[in-house]
């Protein structure tokens, strides 16, 4: 027999089962296209022109592997439904005299057809969309590139090559799996494979309980974690625990739950519970994994969307925090004497002189002196002689503080107040911690210096970008004897920073700001200037010059968040769709029987609704629960990205959840309609 004959058989098979094959082929097409797009973006030459291109490229490479990995899982999962449906047909062919060899040939043809479609449509779609994907990326990054429509043949070929290699491999694996199932079964088994009686699930206390324990542990980690840096490590542990716990809970726990309901005879033997509870239990065993997958995918989408969106939309805020004014200058002095009032006013005057050619307006000037150092609370004493970075470890992280000493005069000038402090009295402002000590004991080389805390202040924001970028708790201390304190600490602490900061707005254009900052650097980063002002180091940073780098990182994350969310949502929809369709076919006969036995159409519909609702919204409820408990740890993680706007994050998270739930309900509506359609078809 010719190959054309098998092609025809395969094609008829696909056409006849189009309700199942169409979404499957669509998945294949979309997965291929998605992979191509992400893959092509990283090859794309124009990425180099974007800010932060190295970071984005790395993130994209990682993303394309994630998509490939998920493709394997989804396509296998969806294909298993197809095989189950087609076994009957293959059984018939087998009985009509086709050998296993011929069946394999049909399978080969079928795989070829699907592959042809996926590659043809997927790659064309990918090539078309990758251009718009690039545009989207530029838009998100706010890169100012005049976009030229160009096709880079080399990068397109490279991406096509990668895509074809990877997906041909995936299709081959799927083919082998189908082959294995066809080969090991005999014709009668194939013919009846759909109606094989299945053992009712055993309830497994141990698995269900361990799932619950895993989940609670993960929640506990998330809720109790205090330190942002440690949270990164614990986050991945918690994610693993949640995934494992969710699977166990859905697969074992749900059966257990239904069993318990069944034991309660008064509840179970009611017309609206009877059918649903038993068929739910029956279903959970097989579909517990599917539901858990949906739940985890939903959680991933929600976490990703809410965090990347929060970051993206607070870019400006974070940027402003990091660079409080248009021009931000910091001078690190060699000795405390260089921080005297006279020397500083000379320095400030010289800055104004240097900026004069640009006619900068010097608005919102904020300047203050500070000394900055690390310290560890050991009992009630703050140690700093050996507190270098090397000592920094996770165990002591929560006792580790950034200290800033600010002169009282600068404080009064900036706040317009008239605070007075007697000797050894200080004002304290604490950031990223709740701990406000009564007195501060600094361990020096020759004894302890003690300050009494007069009161806590909240009206002084340390407008210091470096402090913002740190993840340590910060203690700002307003001292009356600034220079003496600095001199005293200087005698035993080399890592002490004696600095003067000045920030100001200029009223200049973007380009002018960058140029001014550049020129200030040139003026003050010279040996001459260092000599004149006693500088270790000076720098001027303009907010505008750093904007693009910022947007490169946050925009890149946001972009990847969107892309991966699309993939995950797509996967979740497919799982839902196939669940509904396959269950619909299974339930056809069941509902027919129930109707014959005397169940009304309304009762059937009510029972279906109850089941669908439970099965559908269980993952959503759990995803919401996961999200709530993930909130504290993610919020800590975002601190690493200098994001501390809890309200914005909470709102974004709630918004994402709401949007997702809306979308999910829509999918529910569509798929349950398909389900009703299949179930009611049988009654005609």
């Amino acid at each position, binding site marked *: 027999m010719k190959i054309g004959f098998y092609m025809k058989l395969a094609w008829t098979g696909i056409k006849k089962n189009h309700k199942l094959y169409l979404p499957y082929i669509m998945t294949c097409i979309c997965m291929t296209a998605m992979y191509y797009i992400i893959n092509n973006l990283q090859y794309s030459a124009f990425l180099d022109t974007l800010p932060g291109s190295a970071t984005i490229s790395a993130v994209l490479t990682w993303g394309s592997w994630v998509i490939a990995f998920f493709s394997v899982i989804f396509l296998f999962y969806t294909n298993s439904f197809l095989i189950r449906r087609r076994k009957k047909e293959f059984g018939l062919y087998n009985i009509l005299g086709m050998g296993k060899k011929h069946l394999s040939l049909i399978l080969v043809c079928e795989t070829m057809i699907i592959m042809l479609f996926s590659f043809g449509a997927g790659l064309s779609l990918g090539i078309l969309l990758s251009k718009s994907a690039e545009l989207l990326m530029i838009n998100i990054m706010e890169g100012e590139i005049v976009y030229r429509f160009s096709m880079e043949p080399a990068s397109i070929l490279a991406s096509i090559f990668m895509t074809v290699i990877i997906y041909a491999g995936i299709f081959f694996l799927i083919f082998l799996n189908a082959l294995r199932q066809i080969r090991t079964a005999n014709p009668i088994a194939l013919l009846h494979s759909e109606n094989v*009686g*299945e*053992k*009712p699930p055993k309830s497994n206390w141990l698995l269900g309980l361990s799932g619950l324990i895993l989940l609670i542990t993960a929640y506990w980690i998330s809720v109790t974690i205090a330190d942002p840096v440690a949270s990164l490590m614990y986050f991945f542990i918690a994610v693993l625990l949640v995934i494992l716990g969710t699977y166990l809970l859905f697969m074992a726990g749900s059966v257990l739950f239904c069993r318990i309901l069944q034991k309660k*005879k*008064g509840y179970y*033997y*009611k*017309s609206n519970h*009877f059918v649903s509870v*038993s*068929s739910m*239990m*029956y279903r959970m065993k097989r579909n517990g994994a599917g539901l858990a997958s949906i739940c985890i995918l939903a959680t991933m989408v929600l976490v990703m969307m809410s965090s990347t969106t929060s970051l993206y939309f607070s870019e400006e805020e974070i940027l402003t925090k990091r660079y409080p004014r248009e021009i931000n200058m910091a001078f690190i002095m060699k000795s405390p004497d260089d921080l005297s009032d006279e020397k500083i006013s000379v320095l400030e005057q010289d800055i104004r002189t240097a900026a004069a050619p640009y006619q900068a307006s010097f608005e919102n000037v904020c300047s203050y002196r500070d000394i900055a150092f690390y310290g560890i609370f050991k009992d009630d004493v703050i140690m700093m002689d050996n507190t270098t970075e090397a000592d920094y470890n996770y165990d002591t992280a929560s006792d580790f503080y950034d200290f800033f000493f600010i002169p009282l005069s600068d404080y009064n000038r900036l706040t317009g107040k008239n605070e007075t402090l007697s000797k050894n009295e200080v004002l304290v402002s604490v950031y990223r911690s709740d701990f406000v000590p009564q007195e501060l004991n600094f361990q020096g080389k020759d004894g302890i210096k003690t300050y009494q805390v007069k009161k806590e202040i909240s009206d002084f924001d340390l407008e210091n970008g470096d402090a913002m970028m740190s993840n340590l708790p910060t203690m700002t201390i307003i001292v009356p004897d600034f220079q003496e304190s600095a001199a005293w600490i200087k005698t035993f602490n080399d890592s002490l920073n004696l600095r003067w900061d000045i920030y100001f707005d200029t009223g200049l254009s973007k380009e002018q700001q960058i140029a001014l900052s550049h020129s200030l650097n040139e003026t003050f980063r010279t040996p001459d200037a260092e000599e004149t002002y006693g500088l270790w180091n000076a720098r001027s940073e303009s907010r505008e010059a750093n904007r693009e780098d910022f947007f490169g990182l946050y925009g890149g994350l946001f972009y990847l968040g969107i892309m991966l969310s699309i993939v995950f949502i797509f996967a979740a929809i497919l799982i839902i769709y196939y669940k509904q369709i396959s269950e619909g076919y299974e339930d056809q006969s*069941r509902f*027919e*029987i*129930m*109707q*014959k*036995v*005397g*169940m*009304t*159409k*309304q*009762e059937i519909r009510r029972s279906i609704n109850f089941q669908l609702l439970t099965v559908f919204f269980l993952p959503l409820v759990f995803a919401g629960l996961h999200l709530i408990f993930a909130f504290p740890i993610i919020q800590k993680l975002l601190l690493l990205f200098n994001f501390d706007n809890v309200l914005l994050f909470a709102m974004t998270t709630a918004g994402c959840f709401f949007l997702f739930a809306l979308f999910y309900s829509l999918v529910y509506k569509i798929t349950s309609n398909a389900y009703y359609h299949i179930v009611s078809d049988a009654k005609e």
Partner: protein
Amino acid sequence: MSMLEVTNLRKVYTTRFAGNQVEALKNVSFSVEEGEYIAIMGESGSGKTTLLNILAALDKPTDGSVILNDRELTHIRESEVSAFRRDNLGFVFQEFNLLDTFTLEDNIYLPLVLAGKSHQEMSERIAPIADQLGIRKLLRKYPYEVSGGQKQRAAVARALITEPKLILADEPTGALDSKASSELLQLFSEVNRKGQTILMVTHSVNAASHANRILFIKDGEVFHQIYRGNSTNEQLYQKISETLTILATGGDRR
């Protein structure tokens, strides 16, 4: 007044493609008295199944009336049909139609649960029936764990538990081996002796020979009927065979 009164029943189907009219039932009239055990025989395509579906209120006749227990079946509203069926009819099907998600016990309970009975009442009712049908020890098992004959007995239990006016059986022995078949037929006779009215559609002569009256349907009409009278099962078997031969060779109506 008879318990079931079927008068001038006619059912016309329109074929899907050509729109041809096919008369599945032409003019069927008969009645069933309480406590009767009736077999309806006929070739494939004679209209047996159509008749049964109409009696079960699963299908509506084109003309004619079906009166069960003083109620006109064709006039029952769509929303009441299921409840009516549940309360008055018990079904036994060829392919058992047990739900594989339920144990046999739960399968038997199904109509009672739908009727909103309490669990206590259900367990009181099931005990004597399970004893009579010999499935007491199997109640906890699932359908796929028991034999065909046992499944069919569970299905009979499900039909009996609502204490229906009429049991409708559609080829109940069709999927059973001869031993299980004769056990089931004995069971039917026994149930009938206790007063249960049974209407069975079959083309097995053996099955029909257990009934008290046999109606023969040919080409959508009641062609002939045989009463058992004082015949034994074997004698009745003989009579039925003869009638079928005449039917098959195209004899005129006697």
